[in-house]
């Protein structure tokens, strides 16, 4: 790769107590690329993303965005960087004290890019993109179904049109059709905004749709990266076992302590 990658992780390590969750993660994500990250439950996918966002401080390793080391950045710059990043949390993490429309436009309002008067219309527009009616904007997040919460979370992540977007299991809990719609939306965002997207998913159909590149994380390390289209016949026994969901293979589900 000639140009600097948008995101570059080297030797990222994180321990919680005695448990090593990340054990030297190396990963490059090129600008404008759709990267999908695969891996078993508890393999550290969410922790990796939270490290990149600065929500968890890694014990060792480096994180570069646009070639700049974010761990060494002064706080103000780091905050400015976060202004350009969007995140969909695995559990939605919607603010339950605010109505949906305020959730969706939260970042635009925080950055004063929009007035409160205009925020409702903007929210309706973004909600429409994720297949929700404008009337949903006036509900509180606790009044929504799980799948609707996910879509509101997605709307919130993309409303401010970020350069880098992280999707932590964007289609988990959605019906297959809505899953495909959301996948389409993610692809579209990446194309339209020219954004770099990193998605975590367990859904292989979805991974092939939204990913240009895929990476597999196992036991705290990236064990494989390659074109997402080859998932299932990549030639790597671990990846293929995971992609095809077979019980037999190099990955054994040892009991996690």
């Amino acid at each position, binding site marked *: 790769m000639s140009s600097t990658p948008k995101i570059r992780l080297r030797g990222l390590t994180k321990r919680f107590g005695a448990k090593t969750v990340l054990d030297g993660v190396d990963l490059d994500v090129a600008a404008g690329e759709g990267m999908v990250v695969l891996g078993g439950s508890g393999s550290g996918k969410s922790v990796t993303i*939270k490290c990149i*966002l*600065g*929500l968890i401080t890694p014990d060792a390793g480096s994180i570069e965005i646009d070639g700049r080391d974010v761990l060494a950045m002064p706080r103000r710059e780091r*905050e400015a960087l*976060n*202004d350009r*990043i*969007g*995140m969909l*949390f*695995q*559990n939605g*993490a*919607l*603010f*339950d*004290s605010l109505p949906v429309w305020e959730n969706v436009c*939260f*970042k635009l309002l*925080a*950055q004063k890019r929009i007035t409160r008067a205009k925020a409702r219309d903007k929210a309706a527009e973004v909600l429409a993109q994720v297949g929700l009616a404008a009337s949903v904007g006036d509900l509180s997040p606790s009044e929504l179904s799980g799948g609707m919460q996910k879509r509101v979370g997605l709307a*919130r992540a993309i409303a*401010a049109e970020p350069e880098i977007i992280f999707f932590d299991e964007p289609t988990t809990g959605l019906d297959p059709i809505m899953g495909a719609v959301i996948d389409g939306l993610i692809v579209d965002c990446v194309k339209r905004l020219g954004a770099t997207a990193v998605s975590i998913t367990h859904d292989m159909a979805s991974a092939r749709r939204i990913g240009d590149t895929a990476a597999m994380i196992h036991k705290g390390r990236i064990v494989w990266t390659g074109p997402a289209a080859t998932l299932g016949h990549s030639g790597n026994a671990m990846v293929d076992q995971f992609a095809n969901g077979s019980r037999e293979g190099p990955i054994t589900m040892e009991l996690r302590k």
Partner: protein
Amino acid sequence: MTLILNVLAAIGRGVLGACRVLGAVVLFALEGVSHILRPPFYPRLIGRAFVEIAYFSLPVVALTAVFTGMVLALQSYSGFSRFGAESAIANVVVLSITRELGPVLAGLMVAGRIGAAFAAEIGTMRVTDQIDALTTLSTNPMKYLVAPRLLAGTIAMPLLVVIADILGVMGGWLIGTAQLGFTSASYLTSTLNFLQPMDVISGLVKAAVFGFVITLMGCYSGYTSRGGAQGVGAATTTAVVSSSILILALDYVLTAAFFGS
């Protein structure tokens, strides 16, 4: 010998742990205050916290104050009549209320309501990643969640205590005139005659400090809570217990500072 060493080690560990927590709370408080002073400000959130603390605590604080005033009048009557000092009842009531019982009882009531509510709300936000979400949405969680509450608590408590002071005196007056044979005028005159501005001011300063401590412990316990519903429950308990104890301890410190010499 080893037994003694073990006991000492256990005590040492406890003391060190307490120091660590104290240090963390102080740093948290300093960061919170620094965010009160620097923009962006969130007037809407300050207002919401203020209403929750001042307005919704009003009924409990008012009831507490009225009954406390009534009890004080009765108690001091039954005590003072033994040596013919009934005339001092009004003074005893107003001094006890303004200096001590107004701020302390209002503080304990608000600690139960607000400390618990803030710890539960912020704790739930912590365990459901909402605090992390704030960071990713260009908003500093300390500034958004903690600073407005600290400010609102510090302003709201003195106002509540002014009301508690008035209602407490009214409770005493009620018993004094209805039961103990004071005329309304004589009761109120002796209430106001001996009252110094310092009596009221010291009570209001206490109230402001208690308001800060209650919201601080509520926010801190919630903010640092871990591990699901159980963690939030523990945070709620910690908030109420720690702020109640701090109120009583700081009450001593402040009383000594105001009237000690």
